[in-house]
């Protein structure tokens, strides 16, 4: 993979962010796929999805968070505490799930002990957990307030035209990523799952206009490339948040290739486009509220199973690996029913609970992956 892309998967303050900051640009962090990047982009800033890479311990994370909490937000907090997120000018914390939403308090409280780690604009953003006309109405208002706060703090103005442009740029990016999906599900695959994940992650850490250009070039290269991966077991990777390319590398070290995913650092972030007609704010909110692919949207199991099954079938996978970070009960338990229903549909499936970041124990994960591949061979 191109170095500039792989750099973004392992380094928070990558060359693009650095260039952006050097040019006087502002960077706003956000916690999950329920925060509309378009709003931040329309404000002329760089939306940057918060991640826990580079964390080598969770000593700070464990100081504020309790023991039975997902290690992903703990790692994010760790990095914040270590000052690695000082390049952020703002951050939006959303109620994606209970572990993530407490990043709000923990980060603020940690900043009482570690000076200067809290971005000057730190905003708590609510997203309803259901789809209904009144929840959409509330969400539009909530997003309007987000805009107001952004505008007031940074002295900027976000017009409807800005929003429309943002929609069109992000839709373009999503369409390109869907083109990447098309390549991945071919019989002869031009890109490994690990590289594909790197490309997708890069989209959350590179200014979108630049990213779209990069992605277009890359797609052309891949489409023309003669190098194809064949003869491997085809897998779909699903479950809770994963921005760790090494997990996919571990899977692919064996005789397997990940050709599809249902991850939030993955297809869940781009399969749905935003309508380009009508009120742009409403269109944005509609898209973000109705893409109910995270189990944080309670009561949409059937929709999510359909999505998973369709993707698995389209990609002609031999098996599905459903992972979740320990204490993510939302994905963890839904994985349990997915397994039941996928196996019933004849798609072999393996569930796997793991830790995030520095705690990853590759030996144990590898043992299971090996056994799973032996099972489906």
């Amino acid at each position, binding site marked *: 993979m191109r170095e500039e892309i792989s750099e973004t998967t392992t380094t928070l303050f990558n060359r693009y962010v650095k260039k952006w900051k050097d040019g006087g640009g502002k960077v706003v962090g956000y916690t999950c796929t329920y925060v509309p990047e378009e709003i931040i982009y329309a404000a002329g800033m760089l939306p940057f999805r918060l991640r826990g890479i580079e964390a080598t311990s969770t000593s700070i994370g464990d100081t504020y968070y309790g023991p039975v909490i997902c290690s992903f937000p703990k790692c994010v907090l760790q990095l914040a505490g270590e000052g690695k997120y000082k390049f952020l000018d703002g951050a939006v914390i959303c109620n994606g799930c209970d572990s993530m939403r407490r990043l709000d308090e923990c980060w603020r409280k940690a900043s009482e002990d570690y000076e200067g780690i809290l971005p000057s604009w730190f905003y708590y953003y609510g997203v309803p957990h259901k789809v209904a006309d009144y929840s959409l109405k509330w969400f539009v208002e909530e997003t309007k307030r987000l805009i107001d706060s952004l505008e007031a703090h940074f002295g900027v103005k976000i017009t409807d035209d800005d929003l429309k442009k943002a929609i069109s740029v992000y839709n373009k990016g999503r369409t390109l990523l869907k083109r990447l999906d098309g390549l991945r599900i071919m019989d002869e695959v031009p890109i490994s799952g690990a590289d594909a994940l790197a490309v997708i992650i890069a989209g959350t850490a590179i200014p979108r206009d630049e990213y779209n250009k990069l992605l277009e070039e890359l797609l052309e290269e891949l489409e023309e490339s003669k190098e194809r991966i064949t003869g491997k077991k085809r897998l779909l990777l699903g479950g809770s948040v994963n921005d760790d390319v090494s997990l996919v590398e571990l899977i692919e070290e064996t005789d397997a290739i990940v050709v599809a995913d249902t991850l939030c650092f993955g297809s869940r972030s781009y399969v749905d486009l935003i309508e380009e007609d009508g009120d742009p704010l409403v269109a944005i909110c509609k898209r973000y509220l109705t893409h109910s692919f995270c189990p944080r949207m309670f009561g949409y199991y059937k929709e999510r199973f359909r999505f998973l099954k369709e993707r698995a079938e389209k990609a002609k996978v031999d098996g599905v690996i459903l992972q979740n970070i320990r204490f993510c009960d939302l994905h963890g338990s839904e994985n349990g029913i997915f397994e039941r229903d996928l196996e019933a549909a004849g798609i072999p499936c393996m*569930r796997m609970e793991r830790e995030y970041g520095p705690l990853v124990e590759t030996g144990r994960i590898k043992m299971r992956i090996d056994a799973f591949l032996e*099972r489906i061979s």
Partner: protein
Amino acid sequence: MIVAGCDIGSLTAKVVIMTNGKILASPVIKSKSRPEESAKEVMDMALSKAGLCLDAIEYCIGTGYGRGKIPFVNEVISEIACHGKGARFLLPTARTVIDIGGQDCKTMKIDRSGKLIKFITNDKCAAGTGRFLEVMANVLGVRLEDLGALSARARAPVALASTCTVWAQAEVVRNINEGKSIEDIGASVNEAMAKRVAILVNSVGVEKDVCMSGGVAKNIGVVKSLERLLGVKIKKLKLDPQIVGALGAAVFAKEKLEGGAE
């Protein structure tokens, strides 16, 4: 046809050398800090027992955590598959294999040929693994191999927190201080262990016959509790349950030479 299986685990290293379905040697040693050292030492031991040199081994399969580091193997296979294969070799009617090793616990369902159909592993923490028993035996001041027998002699087993090894340890200490008998506490340790394992086994579903591999299979207290919790008899394997993984690897090696699975 002489084949070998080499299982380098986190706590012990095992080798099985076989010829025509007969076991020539099956030594077990404590693992060294480096897997390649363990592998060499245990293989040397096996070879001298069998009176063979390494070149005599026609095919060798490695398994266990350290399998990637074994210098003399032709191929590696996951220990999950090997335990299934080994158990099937010893007990042709086995369909469910429960393996409790030093650091993890797994349950495998296998078909008639010993092929893996479904499996589940629990390796997120020590509660529910052999390590749990080791820690508790240590606190109780009994030898690990004597822990199992305590269950039969218990009168009133105590309640024990069992979700976390560290806390369970504190509970055991408290019970000792309160004058509870070693038998009663030991029985609770075995019961707690069995309960955690039972969840895993039930997750894949019990299918007869059921057998156990791994060191904990020697703990009669755990085995009895498990039988009660699962409502099935656990069939005893004819060999040291610790070597089932290595044995399975050797069986795989034999099948390889014979050209494909049976």
